């Protein structure tokens, strides 16, 4: 057997955990930007834009993230586009997260009560003004709990970046296990670290859901 768990292993795991957080942040920002565009496209007055964005969502939601990951890491070099593990993982997660966040946020925008849209129109606001000044500020409040909840999914899904050799938490566990041969112990520790990252977000999401968004919390505090 290859020795016992020591401080170096924990430093390595910590580094992996930091990369998991970093990759999650990249996926959230990238997926958030693309997802926001998708959400706006899904409610566009232009039918072609609506159909294209709906098609994107259907395609991505019908494909496993793992296959998207393999497609970008092994598929792109095969057709002459070299790509690093970090770039492949970031691109795959962005594409994947955008489809889900886009759909969540579309629901939130559409759940802003109808009279708000009509009132904004009655005040002769342009479409852009209506979106930016009336609808989105209210939609953001509705969107906060499910978005925080989805961040848990993002963190968990970054574990799939390990299959393209990107050294995040799950991969650093595999590497340590290759020298220790204590798979159950190592993966238990990995699971605990993931839990420590995800559980606070799950709790926060549920708390926000009960209190109806961050704005409401501030009001209650005041």
């Amino acid at each position, binding site marked *: 057997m290859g020795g016992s768990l020591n401080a170096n292993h924990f430093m390595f795991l910590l580094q992996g955990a930091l990369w998991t957080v970093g990759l999650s942040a990249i996926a959230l920002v990238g997926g958030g930007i693309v997802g926001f565009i998708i959400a706006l496209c899904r409610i566009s007055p232009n039918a072609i834009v609506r159909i294209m964005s709906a098609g994107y969502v*259907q*395609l991505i*939601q*019908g*494909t*496993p*993230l*793992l*296959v*998207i990951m*393999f*497609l970008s890491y*092994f*598929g*792109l*070099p*095969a*057709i*002459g*586009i070299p790509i690093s593990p970090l770039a492949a993982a970031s691109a795959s997660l962005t594409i994947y997260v955008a489809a889900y966040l886009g759909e969540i946020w579309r629901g939130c925008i559409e759940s802003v009560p109808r009279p708000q849209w009509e009132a904004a129109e009655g005040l002769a606001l342009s479409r852009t003004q209506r979106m930016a000044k009336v609808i989105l500020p209210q939609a953001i409040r509705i969107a906060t709990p499910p978005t925080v909840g989805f961040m*848990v999914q993002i963190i*968990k*899904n970054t*574990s*799939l970046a*390990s*299959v393209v050799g990107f050294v995040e938490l*799950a991969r650093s*566990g595999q590497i340590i296990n290759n020298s220790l041969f204590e*798979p*159950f112990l190592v*993966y*238990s520790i*990995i*699971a605990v670290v*993931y*839990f420590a990252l*995800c*559980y606070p977000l*799950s709790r926060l999401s549920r708390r926000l859901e009960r209190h109806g968004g961050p704005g409401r919390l501030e009001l209650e505090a005041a």
Partner: protein
Amino acid sequence: MNLNLDFGAILERWPMFLDGAILTLQLASLATILGAVIGILGAIGRRSRNPVIVRICGIYVEAIRNTPLLVQIFLVYFGLASLGLKFSAFAVAALALTINVGAYATEIIRAGFDSIPRGQIEAAEGLALSRTQIYWHIVLLPAIEKVYPALTSQFVLLMLASSVTSQISAEELTAVANFVQSDTYRAFETYILVAVLYILLSLIMRLGFWLLGLAIFPRRRRLRTAL
């Protein structure tokens, strides 16, 4: 960048892809059926009068929902091995997926239970229905009917997530793809084809669940409301 796609070598191996797709569907169906059973038991457990059972079900749900499937699969795989138990990759994959989806199903079905108005149960008691009758007709069936769309999307997500079991060499669709791409050096075409197959599989599952919904919830059909 010279883009010359050649699906010929890939499509030649269609029997392998078919086998992989069938295995993926088998994994998904097995985990769906067992996961639904665990979900119902777990949801009943979370509403139990015994605080220990409530706590155990709560810990199960939170532990599974806050850790990645990949890590769960490794834990089941190596956990069983360290206990000296030898199972096939398929059995381990099915077990890990069942444990995983069971937790999500528990949470979804519990939400269904919570949505049953107290008055319904009181009315049923007033009509002198037995405890079993109340549980079956007034609580369980209407609860599942309410959360049926959420539950079935979770099962479709499970089918997609079963791709992760390729990492413990279960011979499902993604594992077949990995083999074919290393054999043909046509990675891009292989994974495009597999993505299309997964989309087809998820459409098949959605159609299946829709038909199943028509069969088990006749009230919906009569009321002509969408599921």
